[in-house]
């Protein structure tokens, strides 16, 4: 194994650049280093002006997502040696505006998330519970997969529908809505339906499936969206066919 590797990193300085450019850095290649370690090496020893986000460096915070050789990846979970001999292209997440270098604006996602009410909703009439709401392991299994999401937005970066139409609610937001819809303790699925079942919600999705392919936590947002399409369609059928009382 060669002991050095080149990182070709996207730079964008809004005060002086009109277009992002690529800058090359030559760094040591160590077998235990992930891409993020390489960036930290650059920041600490080669070029302190490079900007990027990270926090936990262990795949839980979801802040280090970037495009590595064209694929959306968590840079703290992607080893440099897999790309040897390099060079490795490091770009900011696609489909989001670039603020600076590898930092993108995630405001759009942050505004979309609360629209699907990703929290447990109980009926207004209900008295406050005296004890915890119990749940069987089988009931927990129903939504567990969707609860693994770390909001890294790799799925948004991989989604061509989102690239073309920023109004699309997007994979993670819909998967998170399903996480609560499928929770036996939740009573809010009717409240979420208007947002989810709109033209900018599930119906815009054409099941490209790339969101599920890139998700580092196996959330399968594409599956969540398809399942919800079925739920919403059945609901619409019922509304059409059944008299009001029987719904």
């Amino acid at each position, binding site marked *: 194994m060669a002991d050095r590797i080149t990182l070709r990193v996207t730079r964008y300085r809004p005060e002086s650049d009109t277009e992002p450019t690529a800058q090359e850095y030559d760094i040591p290649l160590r077998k235990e280093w992930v891409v993020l370690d390489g960036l930290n090496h650059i920041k600490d020893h080669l070029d302190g002006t490079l900007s990027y986000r990270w926090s936990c460096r262990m795949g839980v915070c979801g802040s280090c997502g970037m495009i590595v050789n064209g694929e959306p990846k968590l840079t703290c979970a992607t080893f440099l040696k897999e790309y040897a001999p390099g060079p490795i292209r490091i770009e900011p997440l696609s489909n989001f*505006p670039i603020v600076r270098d590898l930092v993108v*604006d995630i405001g759009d996602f942050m505004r979309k998330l609360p629209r699907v009410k990703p929290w447990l909703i109980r009926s207004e009439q209900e008295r406050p519970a005296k004890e915890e709401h119990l749940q069987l392991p*089988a009931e927990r299994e129903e939504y567990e997969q969707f609860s693994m999401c770390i909001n890294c937005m790799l799925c948004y970066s991989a989604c*061509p529908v989102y*690239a073309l*139409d*920023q109004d699309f609610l997007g994979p993670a937001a819909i998967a998170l809505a399903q996480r609560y819809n499928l929770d036996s303790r939740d009573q809010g699925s009717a409240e979420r339906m208007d947002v989810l079942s709109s033209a900018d919600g599930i119906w815009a999705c054409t099941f490209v499936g*790339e969101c599920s*392919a890139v998700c580092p936590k196996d959330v399968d947002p594409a599956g969540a969206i*398809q399942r919800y399409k079925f739920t919403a369609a059945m609901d619409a059928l019922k509304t059409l066919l059944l008299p009001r009382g029987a719904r």
Partner: protein
Amino acid sequence: MKVEYTPFHPRWHRPRVPVFWWLRRRSYLLFVLRELSSVFVAWFVVFLLLLVNAVAQGPEDYRRFVDWSATPGLLLLNVVALCFILLHAVTWLFTLSPHAMVVRLRGRRLPPAVIGVGDLVAWMLASALVIFLILG
């Protein structure tokens, strides 16, 4: 394309999506081809209706229809159509529906792979039935 959510940040860079964005990744290209299979599904409907009509008209028309469908142009079209239809069937039965369907057996959700196998069995049964009915 909308850029509404960066109104106060004109300097933030937002690249445009190229028209042929689906040429940039293999998976995107496969997706677009999969969607194009629908055109050949529509073509099949036309072809089927022509066939049924020819058979109903009598043996003469039927012969003429078979001769017409043996012309190189039409054969080529149907070979291409068959490839696209197979792409549709394979993606639909083995990638789309296993993700989209929730089938429960004794309260447990079946894993996607099992649903795929079920789809395969259904596909083979349906095809066998079609062949049996038509060839007698």
